[in-house]
């Protein structure tokens, strides 16, 4: 961690529910710009929920706690008071585990609009978009850098994309939007080993001193090129343990039995949440 004061994403005592069912039961997490954090945990522990809450998914109700952007000089911005688009303009990004398809809308057109808004937070609806020429050349460069075929930009957003293509489209959006803080929700899921390696390398190229990244993953491969400053383990809606990169390796090899044994209260919460939801995961019911 740098000694210099830096801009931070600060989550404190966060409780959140979906359809009346509490999923997050007091999450505390601080991520500084330039830092990489890994978030691991069994299915249904609340990892994706945390990502949705940070981005402002309307199905998730924050019942207690706060999510704030804290500038280097201490100025605080309450993310919970913002709509999702305002959060994006404030510099927050969520790479979706299951991105939505938007038929008929070309990836390039969507991205041009998104980039324009995010880079000009005060832009009013209907005002000019980023000049096409500038946008195209930047997009082309980014796609070349990430080894993505330029034809990709002409396709409809996630429409008929393979799992791997969707994830690459998410990484491309990350590269173009250059957020201050990015949450990558299982960007490795559904990818083969080579694709995970490519994703890992791509994320490493995009990140850097200006970007704080929270990588939600079950596996350590995605972390190969993105060594986390801290690894956090979520269980039953709370972060129960934090450690260095060795923790990720341990969880990947040995699973969560040690964690469940060490934190019986969280393990009990995990069981009751799964019973209440009647499923393995805590995906949004509206999906």
């Amino acid at each position: 961690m740098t000694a210099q004061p830096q801009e931070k994403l600060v989550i404190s005592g966060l409780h959140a529910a979906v359809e009346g069912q509490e999923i997050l039961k007091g999450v505390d997490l601080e991520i500084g710009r330039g830092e990489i954090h890994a978030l691991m945990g069994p299915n249904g522990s609340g990892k994706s929920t945390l990502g949705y809450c940070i981005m402002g998914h309307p199905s998730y109700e924050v019942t207690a706690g706060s999510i704030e952007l804290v500038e280097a000089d201490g100025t605080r911005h309450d993310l919970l008071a913002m709509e999702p688009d305002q959060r994006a303009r404030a510099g927050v990004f969520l790479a979706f585990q299951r991105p939505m398809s938007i038929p008929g809308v070309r990836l390039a057109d969507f991205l041009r609009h998104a980039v324009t808004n995010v880079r000009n937070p005060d832009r009013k609806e209907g005002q000019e978009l980023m000049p096409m020429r500038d946008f195209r050349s930047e997009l082309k460069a980014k796609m070349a850098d990430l080894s993505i075929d330029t034809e990709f930009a002409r396709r409809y957003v996630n429409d008929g994309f393979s799992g791997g293509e969707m994830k690459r489209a998410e990484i491309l959006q990350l590269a173009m939007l250059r957020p201050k803080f990015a949450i990558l929700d299982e960007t490795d899921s559904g990818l083969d080993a080579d694709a995970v390696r490519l994703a890992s390398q791509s994320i490493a190229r995009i990140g850097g001193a200006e970007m704080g990244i929270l990588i939600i993953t079950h596996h350590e491969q995605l972390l190969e090129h993105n060594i986390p400053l801290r690894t956090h383990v979520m269980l039953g809606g709370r972060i129960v343990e934090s450690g260095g990169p060795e923790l990720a390796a341990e969880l990947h090899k040995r699973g969560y039995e040690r964690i469940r044994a060490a934190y019986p209260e969280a393990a009990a919460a995990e069981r009751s949440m799964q019973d209440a939801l009647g499923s393995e995961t805590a995906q949004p019911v509206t999906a």
Partner: protein
Amino acid sequence: MATGFNQSAIDSSTIAIGTGDAIGEINKYDFRTDSPAVFKARRGIDADIVSQISEMKREPAWMRDFRLKSLEIFNSKPMPHWGGDIGVDFQDIFYYLKPAEQQGKTWEEVPDAIKKTFDRLGIPEAERKFLSGVKAQFESEVVYGSLQEDLSKQGVIFTDTDTAVREHPDLLREYFGRIIPPTDNKFAALNSAVWSGGSFIYVPKGVKIEFPLQAYFRINAESMGQFERTLIIVDEGAQVHYVEGCTAPMYSTESLHSAVVEIVVKKHGRCRYTTIQNWANNIYNLVTKRAMAYEGAMMEWIDGNLGSHLTMKYPAVYMMEPGARGEILSIAFASAGQHQDAGAKLVHAAPNTSGRIVSKSISKNGGRASYRGLVRVEPGARKSRSSVVCDALILDDKSRSDTYPYIEIEEQDVSIGHEASVSKIGEEQLFYLTSRGLTEAEASTMIVGGFIEPLVKELPMEYAVEMNRLIELQMEGSVG
């Protein structure tokens, strides 16, 4: 004339486009100086009015008789009992106004909402006044003149239907009212009795017109009227793309618009007819459109309907001989106080004919969009194929979408497919787009734009651009 949507339709290197103060040159281009000035406009419809219209236009006896007979048919037919609720008082309408009277309105009388939309669409002042019926667009007649010269060298006739009645009586008598007879429906009968304006196009054998012909270039105040009558004849092996209407809102003080469009596409000919209409909210838009396609011929209707109080419009293709093809693409957008009852009709009357209908409708703010379509296969139309796809997008809980597909098949050896879908803009789609910095309104607009994209990409480019802008305008304030 720096209007966005009509320039690329013509070869600007060969056609001089008039600029500057065209008003001073009215007389130079006014070819209607022969109009007698004795017609007294009054409301209502009867044989007297119909005769006067015919007399005003100095029509031959056959046309006057056709009108009077049509009036009888109109009077004898009941209102359609399906579709929308047609609240029109036929005796409270002006059926014919001289161009001068239509132009007599002042810009000040045009409602603010319409002016505002013109502003948003960036339509130049002269064109706005024309579109709102304040005065004719004389500049367009300059363009029209040059276009005429080019086309007439190839034997193409492109004129208004009134002129065609006088100058091309043989063609008119052969085809006028033959594809859509006055007996077809009450509104076709009404149009047949009181029609005025509209386009007449004849494309001779083997002539392929490479650029779209646009009504805009020949339009005058008269043809902006409520009862246009269009007739297009595409001779063997010939080809034409006709574009009608414009995307700017059409404002009229009268509430009834009832056009008839008849098209004949002969052996191996091709015709594409594109319409984008955006009516003011008080309009009843009841239109009959039908094409007959002969051996190996191709007919395509592209039909976009926005605005109006009620639109009932079902472009039809009758495939009369083997190998004929028909395609109908339609987009309807219904907002508050609007009912779009739109659809399509395919009739397979010969073997090996193929048809396709793609319909997309959007309803919001309590609007209602209905798809009403017919696919009919006549006995003997073996190996005919038709597919129908209709997709509806509903933007909120107040709005409504219905589908009325009719399929009549009297032949075994055919392939007919029908798919329908109704969807709402998903919360997850909105969240995905807003999480990338789009406002909810921008996200909705983008989703709607994507929904109609498969049809918009079939439009001439300048129309596609306008269509997207129109959708953006329609979407404003739709997210609350």
